[in-house]
């Protein structure tokens, strides 16, 4: 297990409310090996972004880690003191988010914002030269001039390149990419994705890709974790999850995604809507939408079943 860069075990993140806590992440386990790309897939409100933030203890109040374990590079993240956390954030685990425009500070030049991370974590280097080399690396045209630009002077794709440059500034061992291309146009999406894959090969970093887009997952991830209502309902190698999915939710998602190669045969959506995490159904959280649901599913939350060594599913009736 310690070969893994990241090991998350039974992680729960709750949000305090006046009444019952909201169980946003509910006993989630997954791992990321060094240099590997792992996807966390799910729809809005399934807990994928909260899981990502919890990895560096960035979940803000009233959220709190209610249980479980996070080990990164052999260290216990939940036991770290503030100084250790600061050292890890940005330097070892870096993030890029969906909306580059809201992640960049509008009143500082982008070069300055990239330099900030360098000054914090890599004292003593030639900052300006390094910023230019980073911007070159992420394919921002004309970096000497662009480092003086303010975020609003750049297009969405260029802003995301700046975010990636910031994330890479400290050569992290893992990049958490939370819907990194969702806000971008398709042709720009493809460029950014291609850039991430190339940088990963060059730098040997791991990527935790958080997305709702199964097409994206098929192209870049090696292993996939499918989340629903705060739980990982199925996990395994990408070929098995997308090719031989066992959980009715994964299957439903696959059937609901329109395909480029698809014709006019009627798509089958999943009935109902994603549940509100504050009002989760009893038993298996997917049972109200599940075509296979039986009495047992309403009463008992299924535990994870091992299909093959690395393909696991949480369903009473996956067979």
């Amino acid at each position, binding site marked *: 297990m310690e070969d893994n860069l990241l090991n998350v075990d039974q992680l729960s993140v709750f949000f305090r409310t006046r009444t019952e806590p909201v169980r946003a992440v509910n006993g989630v386990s997954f791992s990321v090996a060094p240099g590997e790309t792992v996807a966390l897939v799910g*729809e*809005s409100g399934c807990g994928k972004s909260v899981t990502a933030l919890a990895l560096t203890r960035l979940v803000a109040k009233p959220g709190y880690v209610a249980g479980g374990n996070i080990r990164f590079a052999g260290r216990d993240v939940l036991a770290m003191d503030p100084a250790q956390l600061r050292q890890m954030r940005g330097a070892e685990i870096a993030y890029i988010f969906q909306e580059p425009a809201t992640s960049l500070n509008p009143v500082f030049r982008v070069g300055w914002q990239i330099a900030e991370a360098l000054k914090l974590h890599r004292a003593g280097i030639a900052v300006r030269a390094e910023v230019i080399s980073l911007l070159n690396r992420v394919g921002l045209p004309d970096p000497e001039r662009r480092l003086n630009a303010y975020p609003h002077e750049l*297009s969405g*794709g*260029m802003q995301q390149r700046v975010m990636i440059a910031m994330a890479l500034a400290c050569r992290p061992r893992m990049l958490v990419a939370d819907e990194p291309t969702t806000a971008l*146009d*398709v*042709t*720009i*999406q*493809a*460029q950014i*994705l*291609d850039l991430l894959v190339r940088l990963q090969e060059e730098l040997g970093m791991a990527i935790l890709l958080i997305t*709702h*887009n*199964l*097409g*994206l*997952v*098929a*192209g*870049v991830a090696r292993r996939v974790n499918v989340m629903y209502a705060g739980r990982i309902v199925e996990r395994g190698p*990408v*070929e098995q999850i*997308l*090719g031989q999915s066992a959980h009715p939710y994964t299957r*439903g*998602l*696959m*059937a*609901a*995604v*329109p*395909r*480029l*190669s*698809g*014709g*006019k045969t*009627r*798509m*089958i*959506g*999943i*009935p109902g*809507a*994603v549940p509100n995490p504050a009002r989760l159904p009893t038993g298996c959280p997917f049972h109200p*939408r599940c075509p296979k649901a039986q009495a047992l599913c309403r009463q008992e939350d299924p535990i994870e079943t091992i299909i093959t060594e690395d393909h696991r599913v949480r369903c009473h009736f996956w067979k």
Partner: protein
Amino acid sequence: MSLLEINNLHVRFSAGHGHEVRAVNGVSLAVEQGESVGLVGESGCGKSTLGNAVLRLVPVQAGTVRFEDQDVLTLAHRDLFHYRRRSQMIFQDPYGSLNPRIAIGAAIEECLAVHRLGNRAERKRRVRDLLQTVGLDPDYAARYPHEFSGGQRQRVGIARALALDPVFVVADEPVSALDVSVQAQILNLMKDLQQARGLAYLFIAHDLAVVRYMCDRVLVMYAGAIVEAAGVDALFACPSHPYTQALLSAVPDVEKGLRARAAGVRREIVQGEVPTASSLVAGCPFHPRCPYAMDLCRAQLPDERAVGPGHTSRCHFAGKLPPT
């Protein structure tokens, strides 16, 4: 005669300091009765402006729009009022297009009241029927938008668009704000309604796979102009404009991804940025990003040329490019 005929339409916005944004730059298209026409393109290509212009929601500088053989752009007063009953819109963001302080039943009823259809009791009954038609419980009429999920809200948006029994609906990215599992429900609902009521759609979207599922014909827009038009199967089987080819290759797709992974190949990616409407270049607007661009492309705007039955492309080299 087509239901809707647009000829050489131009929409320009002032950008201040004497600058001008050419959002729609000489677009011609036709939509037949009961037909579903897809309009695809990336942000800023002018697809939403075109949809708005057809419904007279933005002023048009030049060109003609004919609907049921009437000149839409010169309609006034009662005729324009009547046009608004025949043509409606479904918006992208069901959160933004419903007033949070008005119960959804009242929001739908308002359309009927404005057009003086029926008395109060009849309108109430009609609202209940409409809610049922779009798959919502009629008793939800008294509820407010925040009580609904995104998918349900989009159903309300559809009910409101259908309230006046239109024959033509502009649907501007109707499912792109929705979760994947809900998207299919809404698309199927729109298909069923189209069949039951003989609706024609101008379906504006950036998701090519959704367009493939929904539409009979597809128009690809780039920098304010339609660069390729074809039947849906022809467009996906043999895209002839380099931009269409680039779009298709850029879409992340499950089968394509798995196949590429198995074969260990990396896809071709179009470089460069999506142009802003104010930064148009001379010649073909796509030439700065086009892998096949020649001197001719930098100098001269290509005309529309036929590359197959009902299939046109605005590329100097259409039909002569290597197949994808």
